[in-house]
């Protein structure tokens, strides 16, 4: 049983305790407040608008020299997908791999690695900036995404390019591992340095770097650059994919626009 406070001082002390607890609880839950949520969720959109106003569509991210390339290029996120179909393809040098391009396109297509390699290519030595703060320099070769999109023919209603991947993230969700996906807008997709990379350092991608095909979006952070790409889907919005925020990491709370 709780003692009843009898003196004024005891009452004041109890009141202060309750107020203190409320203040602490308020601090803990402040990010659940709808207005706070809206402001925190909206700042990524402001960053995007301002950066897009500053950036020309063709303005390149800095490219580096071969001597700048990192000896240890850190690989994080998925580094070895569990998918049985993926593992079977990897064991056979991805000869059976086909990239699917569909959604809001004139002609849905499938491209083998040989077909992708026969298309125009771009090689670039760029800096990979992780949201965590680290940077690595790597040399990437791949097919400009623009060329692949042109081959399929993007319908005018398309706004976003959604990348579905082979890998899953095991984040303790009781319904099982979450499929990895990501998205960029057409402005980023048509940038000259945006490539579907298949080589790193002049050799086919290792599994940990996203074999057989991974995205490079050089004016944004690493979490936009999906690895193990299975399918590219052109969409007018991505609200029905995953939890609707445009990517696995976005669904966990990262900003959709990752130019900063």
């Amino acid at each position, binding site marked *: 049983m709780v003692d009843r406070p009898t003196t004024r001082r005891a009452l004041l002390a109890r009141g202060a305790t309750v107020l203190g607890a409320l203040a602490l609880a308020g601090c803990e839950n402040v990010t659940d407040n709808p207005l706070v949520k809206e402001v925190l969720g909206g700042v990524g959109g402001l960053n995007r608008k301002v*950066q897009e106003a500053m950036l020309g569509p063709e303005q390149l991210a800095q490219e580096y020299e071969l001597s700048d390339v990192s000896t240890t290029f850190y690989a994080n996120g998925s580094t070895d997908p569990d998918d049985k179909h993926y593992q079977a393809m990897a064991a056979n040098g991805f000869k059976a791999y086909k990239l699917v391009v569909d959604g809001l396109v004139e002609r849905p297509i499938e491209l083998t690695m040989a077909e992708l390699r026969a298309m125009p290519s771009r090689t670039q030595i760029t800096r990979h900036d992780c949201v965590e703060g680290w940077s690595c320099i790597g040399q990437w070769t791949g097919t400009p995404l623009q060329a692949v999109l042109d081959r399929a023919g993007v319908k005018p209603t398309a706004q976003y390019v959604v990348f579905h991947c082979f890998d899953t993230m095991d984040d303790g969700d009781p319904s099982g591992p979450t499929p990895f996906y990501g998205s960029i807008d057409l402005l980023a997709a048509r940038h000259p340095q945006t490539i579907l990379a298949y080589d790193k350092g002049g050799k086919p991608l290792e599994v940990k770097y996203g074999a057989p095909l991974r995205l490079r979006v*050089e004016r944004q952070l690493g979490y936009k650059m999906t690895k193990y790409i299975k399918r590219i889907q052109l969409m007018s919005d991505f609200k029905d994919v995953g939890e609707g925020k445009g990517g696995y990491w976005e669904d966990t709370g990262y*900003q959709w626009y990752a130019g900063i």
Partner: protein
Amino acid sequence: MSLAETELDDPVVSNDDAVPKGKEQRLVTLVKRHSVVVRVTHWITVLCLTMLLMSGLQIFNARPQLDFGIKTDFDHPPAVIDSDELDGKARGYVRIGDHRFDTTGVLGLSEFEGKPTERAFPSWATLPGEQDLGTGRAIHFVFAWLFVANGLVYLVWGFATRHFRRDFLPSRAQWRHVGGEILDHARLRFARGEQARQYNAIQKMTYFAVAFVLLPLLVLAGWAMSPGLDAAFPFLLHVFGGRQTARSIHFLAAFGVVLFVVVHVALVLLSGLFNNMRSMVTGWYDIGQERDIHG
């Protein structure tokens, strides 16, 4: 010193309505020290820097090491906050170059929800308290925008009204006596009377350095970490010599701001908390009486 140089309005001398009751025996000379723009932007800056620092430490915790140049050294970074084990006991440490400091309980290893947890900066110093990079970044950006907008208002106002020229650049007379002033500061002898009408030379130079060197450096180094802004403004990378140097400068400049705030708050306390707070809230500051003997 010439009175024309000061920004201060006509003094309000004692026994006026503005003087607190019961203090008639002491001559109180209230002057208008801070304009409303300075007061409002000051407190918005306090809010922004607090939120930016705590969310910044949250972001730093995602990769608690400092590098220089264009890329990260994963094997032997120049400075790192980490944890390891000795005889089955977990320890937190900071390593700078080859110097290692045990920081168990604060840096590298600290209590979170009652359990020793591996994290660079402790929960009480980060925002949010738990490890949450996405929310930390969102908070950082919201207050970064507010900080920059607020800073621009302050800068435009400060140049337009000649506030900086008047209050941030020491006068010739002040330069001549700067040695004595440093001694006065060291003895915690604060100016009173006519001398207190304007900032002393050390104050002026400090505020100048913070407003025109330290904080702009912090903002520019922050921008240099953005791959989008680096593409738009390649000079950002060249000025700092690489994104990782910019990141380290951003961190060290933030540390510089913390040092400034510690000294600033200490001097506010030592030179009269009530008077200083009144001047930064209402604008009115009591310059007090001259000392009988100076020196």
